[in-house]
């Protein structure tokens, strides 16, 4: 098995040097998600600034994949619109369910393309998705999305 196809350099880098980790002072929405199979937990918080750009904060404990994913997400979506975050999330979820056959669009996904290999490890897909699903939930709680918008 190619460990390196799972643990891309970018992933390990985000894991060791998480970007934007920490909670917001006044989040408009916040969601705490756990992965019931392994006990990993994450809190993702969200607000929008005056221009409608997202501010994202997070705290959590978990494996390299879940933590790196939260870091990548934060770097990628900070400043995006809620709509953009939806689009990127949809692309990311699709990638995760492609069982390693996906052809990720780097323009949309940025560093998150590094997770393409995760899709070949079904047990790790949940890890990669944890922060993304929490963000969606936080956006719903902040009233930025309605529940039916789930991607």
């Amino acid at each position, binding site marked *: 098995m190619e460990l390196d196809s799972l643990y891309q350099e970018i992933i390990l880098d985000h894991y060791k040097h998480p970007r934007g980790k920490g909670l917001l002072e006044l989040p408009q929405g916040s969601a705490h998600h*756990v992965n*019931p*199979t392994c006990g990993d937990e994450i809190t993702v918080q969200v607000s929008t600034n005056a221009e409608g750009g997202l501010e994202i904060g997070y705290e959590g404990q978990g494996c390299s994949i879940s933590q790196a994913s939260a870091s990548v997400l934060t770097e990628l979506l900070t400043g995006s619109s809620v709509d953009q975050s939806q689009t990127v999330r949809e692309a990311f979820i699709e990638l995760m369910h492609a069982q390693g056959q996906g052809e990720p669009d780097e323009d949309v996904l940025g560093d998150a393309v590094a997770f393409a290999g995760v899709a070949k*490890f*079904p*047990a790790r897909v949940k890890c990669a998705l944890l922060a993304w699903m929490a963000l969606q939930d936080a956006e719903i709680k902040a009233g930025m999305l309605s529940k039916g918008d789930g991607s």
Partner: protein
Amino acid sequence: MFDVQAVKADFPILATTVHGGQKLVYLDSGATSQKPRQVLDAERDYYEQSNAAVHRGAHALAEAATSAFEHARARIAQFVGAQAPDLIFTKNATEGLNLSAYAFSNATAIAQWDEAIVDPRFVLKPGDSVVVTEMEHHSNLVPWQELCRKTGATLRWIPLTEDGRLDLSHLSSIIDETTRVVSVVHQSNILGTINPVREIMDQAHAVGAIGVVDACQSIPHMPVNVDALGADLLAWSGHKMLGPTGIGCLWGTPDVLSSMPPVLSGGSMIELVQMESSTYAPPPQRFEAGTPVVAQAVALSAAVDYLQALGMREVQSHEQALTEYALKGLNDLDGVRVIGPDTIVDRGSAISFVVDSLHPHDVGQVLDSRGVAVRVGHHCAWPTCRRFGVPSTTRMSPYIYNDESDIDAALEGIVAAQKYFGVK
């Protein structure tokens, strides 16, 4: 139409003999079916190549096992026109029917302490009614009796006509505003009757009741689509449809499943566990506590492949032809009376009969001595026997691997029994 001899050849047990040399004629598939090589191979392959704990491990075998298990779920769901997340694996149909009944008793018990957290559709009180029919298998009767015993609700039932059909003439006074749940058998295991389930489910929904269907004897024998039946919950067993023992299925609508409190609790059905309290995973996991019936699911999926390769319409036509042949043969015998519909209209292949002046046990014994396996007794439908004034019946229930010669063997055995006991 498929080739019955080729089918027979897939079942190793059908080549065995009993009682020192008698060719086995297996006519007890209503009790449990035999298993083709393909199903046994699938189960063994799973153990030899993929066995591990599912949904719990991250290693290669655990992923193989999880994938085999979830593919089986998807395959079996597809067989009845359902979505995988709406299909729960149980150990047998009886467990599925109990899970349905416990949704009500558990919700009722929890509501005493915290009404806010339960769905009021599942909370019963004295004055409420639960409706079944007079042709239920004990497994779709006793759990509802127990529910009434625990909640103070009243059990009602739809009575039967002389020819073994549901008497629906007073349906709207039986299923009325007090009714909270209606549970009916799709095809009777003792009478063979196929019931107009859709009509009954519609009446249940008209009064706001939950509708449950016992599909144990229909899914193995005819095409069944869960949406068409209109039930909220539907249970059946694997072992009657070429699958192994130890597995059953409970299908439910997402609405109802997600509103039901868990029944068995423990590992794998949780979301978050603290010493003080826990929260639960969504269905189907919520209803699959503990290590699930993994190898059995894989084998049942192979059984579904086998049946679908034959074609469920063909399975049904084959059985109808055999049933017609058997009914005619029985009617032609003196002193033999069929209990249940005696035409093939809305009727399956479970055929019960009584022989004048002979007890079913004695009829069955003579048949057995000739290698013919039929079932005798009340067939877990004791109240139905009482309804027809018999303590028990003899039942033949042919399946895909039976042909007219098997029916002939049974008919000849009946005559032999009459002779042996000198009643003819």
